[in-house]
């Protein structure tokens, strides 16, 4: 059997979000086990361990599960990711952090064991700005953009990129931190009311998202001009706000809803036999889909690794090779039953972050669903690449790593 631990959180301040993600992650592997008998004949085990979004519990979970031949970790927490980066390099186990974690881990020369395809925070920031450029005929000069962010390592990630982009495109950026959990944002939103930015971009998580959307509605900020990162784009963020949330946009790098062929199998092999995680309450939600997407990428990497290794019982280092050789084409996605579900992912020894493409979705409060409003868009690599190089080199120096490849 192959072991893919699921370091999830279903309790604590972000439990409501974490639980949906973990369900998607589990269900996809269950599907593979039930339908295909695993991957390459090896069943996949996903022992779950509760981290409560707490770094110490995350470490405990990591230590508790790594002994059983764990192949890859996906802790869904930027804080835990930072903890684990040095540990996985010492233990030689891949760490897969899609859409979160340490951005500069994209540089496979320095971060040998960490992968963050298809997109990272800086990609997200850049794609959002690109979208705004599109909206404004390619010119953001003199525009004002406010960044509302979760006051933590996670929320601070995009600041540097946005600053660079503001220099490049001539918009002004204002930064408004919100202390977690973030139920109180009155003064920040009144500042927004006073300063009248043209757009608001948000890096939020948990209860902060819905509060922000509510407050934005309260100051009559146009929802169309309010863009959240993908972690601020799930049903739990907009539902409590009700109709006022209509038109709110967010980034995403995965599809939502159950309109994909894979769900036929999912229904047949997982949901109906009662094998779905938590009874399948959240199937098709944005976070569920993202959890499933992470599982898809890992499964594909395992398959690749098995091909490369020539055996189905692979080891963690072999899985890294699988990740580095991973190429998920649109055709492959269609084959899996998830056409256009995510961007193409192609990784290599030095690129651990894929193309960085993301797209936008918009909330339709009447229909209570997200709809995709753009195609996958490339980020502005000219701006990002130097930043990534700089940050990863600083890390390499501090940690005494000699770049490879």
């Amino acid at each position, binding site marked *: 059997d192959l072991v893919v631990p699921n370091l999830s959180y279903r309790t*604590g*301040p972000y439990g409501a979000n974490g639980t949906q993600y973990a369900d998607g992650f589990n269900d996809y592997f269950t599907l593979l086990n039930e339908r295909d008998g695993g991957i390459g004949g090896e069943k996949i085990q996903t022992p779950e361990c509760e981290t409560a979004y707490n770094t110490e519990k995350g470490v405990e979970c990591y230590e508790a599960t790594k002994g059983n031949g764990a192949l890859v970790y996906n802790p869904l927490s930027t804080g835990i990711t930072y903890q684990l980066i040095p540990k996985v390099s010492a233990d030689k186990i891949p760490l897969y952090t899609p859409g979160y974690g340490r951005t500069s881990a994209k540089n496979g020369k320095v971060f040998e064991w960490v992968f963050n395809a298809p997109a990272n925070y800086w990609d997200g920031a850049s794609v959002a700005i690109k979208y705004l450029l599109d909206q404004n005929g390619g010119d953001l000069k003199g525009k004002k953009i406010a960044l509302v962010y979760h006051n933590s390592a996670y929320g601070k990630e995009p600041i540097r990129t946005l600053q660079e982009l503001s220099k490049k495109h001539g918009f002004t950026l204002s930064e408004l931190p919100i*202390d977690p959990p973030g139920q109180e944002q009155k*003064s920040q939103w009144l500042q927004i009311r006073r300063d009248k930015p043209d757009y608001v971009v948000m890096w939020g998580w948990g*209860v902060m998202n819905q509060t922000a959307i509510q407050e934005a509605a309260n100051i009559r900020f146009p929802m169309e001009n309010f863009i959240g990162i993908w972690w601020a784009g799930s049903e739990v963020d907009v539902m409590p706000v009700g109709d006022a949330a209509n038109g709110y946009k967010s980034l995403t790098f995965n599809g939502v809803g159950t309109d994909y062929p894979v769900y036929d199998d999912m229904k047949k092999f997982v949901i109906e036999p*009662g094998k779905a995680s938590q009874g399948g309450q959240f199937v098709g939600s944005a976070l569920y889909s993202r959890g499933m997407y992470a599982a898809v990428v890992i499964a594909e990497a395992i398959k690749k690794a098995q091909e490369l290794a020539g055996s189905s019982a692979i080891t963690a280092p072999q899985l890294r090779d699988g990740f580095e050789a991973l190429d998920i084409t649109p055709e492959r996605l269609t084959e899996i039953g998830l056409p256009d579900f995510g961007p193409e992912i192609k990784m290599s020894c030095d690129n651990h972050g894929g193309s960085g493409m993301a797209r936008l979705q918009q909330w339709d409060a009447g229909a209570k669903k997200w709809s995709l409003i753009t195609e996958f868009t490339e980020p502005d690599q000219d701006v990002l690449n130097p930043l990534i190089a700089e940050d990863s080199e600083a890390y390499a120096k501090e940690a005494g790593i000699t770049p490879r490849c």
Partner: protein
Amino acid sequence: MEFLYASEVLVNGLMAGVMYALVALGFVLIYKASGVFNYAQGVMALFAAMTLVGIMEGRVPFAHLINAMFGVHVSHFGWTVPAIFGIALTALIMVGLAIAVEKLVLKHLVGQEPIILFMATIGLAWFLEGLGDVMWGADVKVLDVGLPQGISDGIEAATNDWLGYGFFIDKLDIWATVIAAALVAALVGFSQYTKQGRAMRAVADDHQAALSVGISLRFIWIMVWSIAGFVALVAGIMWGTKSGVQFSLSLIALKALPVLMLGGFTSIPGAIVGGLIIGMGEKLFEYFIGPMVGGATENWFAYVLALLFLVFRPQGLFGERIIERV
């Protein structure tokens, strides 16, 4: 114009303060009646709100546990309950909780030092947090008891006519203010002018002596915890309506602490006045000074404000004088 912005922040700060005060009130009641600093107050608000949603939506309590133990899939009864009955039922459950707390916890800790009782309420907080999740699940729940939400058009129009600038005031905040004012008036009357109120303060001073004059600690505690449970329910409804019913709701307790400190742990009007000062102070500070120092100052500012205040008045604004004698 700047002045108008500032006054809008101020008004909103006052309203936020009222919301804090709603939570602080529960603390004050229990502290007054037993000298117990009830750390579980925030979790009680969460628990009450969860229970209310659960009842209103006809959820099966412990569904998750039942499913895990018996391999079935139950989740809803399939009915819904109107808000008013839901609230009444939840209030009853909070009374039940008060009775259980007295029977299982407080009764056995009569006469212990405050810090021990404080600790027990922390245990209680953990227990309730777990219980709430096991009973009703940890998902984000939408609570709608019919309180209006969103900015009040009337006020906006009126201020626009009058000042040329429409103030945005959340209708929910206005309701919170009305409810809080009513609660405070009722509670002040109760604790100052009734026999039970006096007994309650006696218990806070000296458990043993209270027992010796025939005050039933049991009764007083059940009564006070029930009232505090009810206050928690009110706070839970307001905060739950505002930002959904979920774990973070229990953390508003942290916003109530500086309010308590400033108003005085033992004073019901202090909770409101403290709330207003804190709400106003932190919002104005974040609005004006926040951008200069990088923002997100609200958390610590409330505490620092309260701290500075206490240095001059160690018992808070309206707290009982701390008796220092030998």
